[in-house]
C-alpha cells in the first residue's frame, strides 16, 4: 500500500528512513538518533526541521518495513516510519527502545541492585554518587 520509495537514498549515520506524519503521502526524510531525540531533516538540508523527544513513548512494529512511535499521553497518535528493509526496521526498533534516558536509568538501577545483591556493596559509593537523586531506586518497589 505504501508508495514507492524515492530512488536516491542518502545515508546519514548509516541509516535512512522515509516517513510520513498522519498523511498518506510518504515524505522522504533523513532521520538521526541523537541521545534521546530523533531529529529529522529534509534530504538536502543541514539543519533539522524537527525532533521527537523519545521519553514515555512506545515503539511498535507495524506492517512490513514499518514501525511507529506513539506517546503515553496520546497512544492513538502514531508517527510512522517506513524503512528500506525489514532488517533495518528491526535495527531501528531496537535502537529506539533503548534510546530514552529513563531506559538507561532503569538499566543503571538494575545493575546497581544486582551488584549490591551479589557483593553486598553499593557500586556507586566508591564514586561518591550514591546519594544522587538520579540513581535512586525511587518509587521502585524493592
Amino acid at each position, binding site marked *: 500500500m505504501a508508495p514507492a520509495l524515492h530512488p536516491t537514498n542518502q545515508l546519514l549515520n548509516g541509516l535512512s528512513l522515509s516517513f510520513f506524519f498522519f498523511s498518506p503521502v510518504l515524505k522522504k526524510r533523513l532521520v538521526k538518533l541523537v541521545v534521546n531525540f530523533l531529529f529529522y531533516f529534509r534530504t538536502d538540508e543541514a539543519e533539522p526541521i524537527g*525532533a521527537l523527544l523519545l521519553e514515555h513513548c512506545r515503539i511498535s512494529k507495524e506492517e512490513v518495513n514499518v514501525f511507529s512511535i506513539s506517546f503515553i499521553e496520546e497512544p492513538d497518535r502514531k508517527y510512522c516510519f517506513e524503512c528500506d528493509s525489514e532488517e533495518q526496521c528491526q535495527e531501528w526498533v531496537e535502537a529506539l527502545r533503548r534510546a530514552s534516558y*529513563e531506559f538507561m536509568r532503569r538499566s543503571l538501577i538494575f545493575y546497581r541492585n544486582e*551488584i549490591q545483591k*551479589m557483593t553486598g556493596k553499593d557500586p556507586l559509593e566508591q*564514586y*561518591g554518587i550514591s546519594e544522587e*537523586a538520579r540513581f535512586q531506586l525511587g518509587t521502585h518497589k524493592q
Partner: protein
Amino acid sequence: MLEMYREKLAKKMKLNERSVVHYATCDSPADHAGFLRKRVERHHHHHHHHHTTSYHRRWFILKGNLLFYFEDRDSREPLGLVVLEGCTVELCESAEEFAFAIRFEDAGAKAYVLVADCHTAMEAWVKALSRASFDYMRLVVKELERQLEDARKSLAACHKSPRKLSSGRKRHLSNPALPPVQEKPPILENGYSTWGSSCTPAGASCCDQDGGFSKPPPLPPRRRSAGGSLYIAPTSGLSLTLQESPVSPETACFSKLHHWYGQEIAEVRREWLESKKSGEL
C-alpha cells in the same frame, strides 16, 4: 511586521510539544528542582543601546538530561527547555552572587546564566546539572555493567551451582532438565509504564546461557566514540569532564532546538523586533 514574524515562526523547529510538556509536568520524579533567577539574554545591535541586565525568577525542573523552566511552580506548561548535552556547567563571574552558567560546545549557542538563592543551592544545582547528560549516564551504566560481569565471574568461580544465585527474575519453573526457556521481561518501552513496575530494563533477555545468569541489557547506541577522553577517578567521584570534544554535527541539532525552545518566546520576539529595528533581518 506581523507577516515577517509569522514567517519566522513558520520556520520554527518542530517538536512533539505535547509529549514534551507531558514529560515535564507528569509526576515522574525530578532529579532536581527549585527556583533560580535566569538572566535575560538580549542582542545589542545598536552600539549606543544601553545594556541592562535583568533576571527572571523561574521554577526549574531537571529530569534526566532535560532542564525545564516554568513561570511558576504551579504552571501547567514550561516556558522553555534546555537539553544538557555537550555543555559545561561552571561558576561564573557576575555581578550576581551564586551565579553559574551552562555553556555549550557550539560557539553560536547562547549560554544560560542562572542565579541561585544561596551557596548550597548553587552547589547542588551545579552538581546536578554536571551529571545530567546522557553521556554521563551511559558512562556510569557501562561501568556498572563491567562491575556486574566481574562480580558474576568471581562468584561463578567460587560457587559450584551458579543457578542458586539467580535473583528474583522471572524464570521458567518447569522441568529443570529441559533447556531453559528464554524469557523476556515485560517491555517497559522507554518509560511507558514506569514507576510502580519492576526494575527490569526493557529488552533484557533472561536467557540462561551461562548457568542461570541473565544477560545484561545491551547498551543504548553510542552517539560517537568517547575514546579516551573520559576519566574515572575512584577516589574523587566519577568526574566526567565533557572536554573540548570537537563540535559534532549532532551538537548543531541541539543549538537549533535551543534557539526555539531554550529561550522564552517573549525573548525570541524581542530579539526579532530589535533586529528589525536595526535594519538587520
